[in-house]
């Protein structure tokens, strides 16, 4: 599988590393060249030596997406730090480039659930955190 990850923050870079370790072809796009360091951190080989790909560019630039290999991506992960950016680029991946599996990180639970109803696979860390806190609180108060 070819996995394209846009946004190499804590989440994006960790998912990139585990996808690469699982034997997938992984390409990462981030506007900050320094984010590359996160891909190298804690690894015995550099990201490129491990056959990972890294492109510098912003997510809305069609050229950058193409350079990062979106045209042959099987999976597209939108994990930048902007909810709206993630929601928009996930739709671009889906509608313009026909990427089959698209996942967007959306902090805001309300936006995550509405776009989820529209057929976009969204993951809301905030929603998970709320649920975990509620469960922990229940246990504490039990």
């Amino acid at each position, binding site marked *: 599988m070819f996995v394209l990850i846009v946004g190499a923050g804590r989440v994006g870079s960790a998912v990139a590393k585990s996808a690469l370790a699982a034997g997938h072809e992984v390409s990462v796009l981030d506007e900050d060249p320094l984010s590359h360091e996160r891909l190298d951190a804690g690894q015995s080989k550099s990201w490129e030596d491990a056959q990972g790909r890294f492109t510098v560019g912003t997510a*809305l630039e069609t050229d950058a997406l193409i350079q990062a290999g979106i045209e042959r991506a099987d999976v597209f992960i939108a994990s930048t730090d902007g*909810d*709206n950016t993630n*929601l*928009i680029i996930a739709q*671009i991946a889906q509608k313009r480039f026909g990427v089959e599996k698209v996942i967007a990180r959306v902090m*805001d639970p309300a*936006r995550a659930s509405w776009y989820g109803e529209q057929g976009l696979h969204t993951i809301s860390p905030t929603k998970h955190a709320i649920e975990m806190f509620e469960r922990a609180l229940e246990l504490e108060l039990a």
Partner: protein
Amino acid sequence: MYAIVVGAGKVGRNLARELIVKDHEVTLIECSRARYLTIEEEFEHAVQYGDATELWVLERAGIQRADLVIAVTGDDEDNMLVCQVAKEKYLCESIIARVNNPRNYDHFKLLGILPAVSATDLILRLIEHEVPRYGLVHLLALEEERLEIIELEVSADAPVAGERVADIALPEGSLIISVLRENAGFVPKPDTVIEGGDGVLLVLDPGLEQSITAFFAPDGSPAEA
């Protein structure tokens, strides 16, 4: 009419002001606290503080009954998201989005967010209008009707030189209305043959200048005004 204007920069503020003068009900939404406080004095209850890409902020502004949502923030993703949600979730009848980076225009189009207005594009179009870069002369612009009449000189090596009018497949939205030859003009018939050196008058939809020029003067040499 009830309009929600998202983004209280220069564009948003002036739009809101104009709409209020024209007796429309307006809510302006601004996500910068500092900017909100500065303009609150002028707009009073017509401005709300909040991030309009949050659904509850839009609902608080009454998006369910809005006739028009205008997104004019400086961020294209935010403008796209606000308009998409307004149109598809809240079934708002009309939306208008501002495009900050003209390269993003295709994304707006892809997501059905139209009309999308780009200041850069508007100015570029004006420049092309004022400076006949494509070797054509604008004779008349019918702004309201969105039509214009232009004059072009047919170069000797033009694809249309020697062709019958009926055989020239011009883009949709354009029509040859007159041929100028040897100091006289006439309305062409389908079997009129266009010759190099002719002047032609065309009526066309704005924006077709470049593709039209390719038919008549591929090298873009200026026509004689």
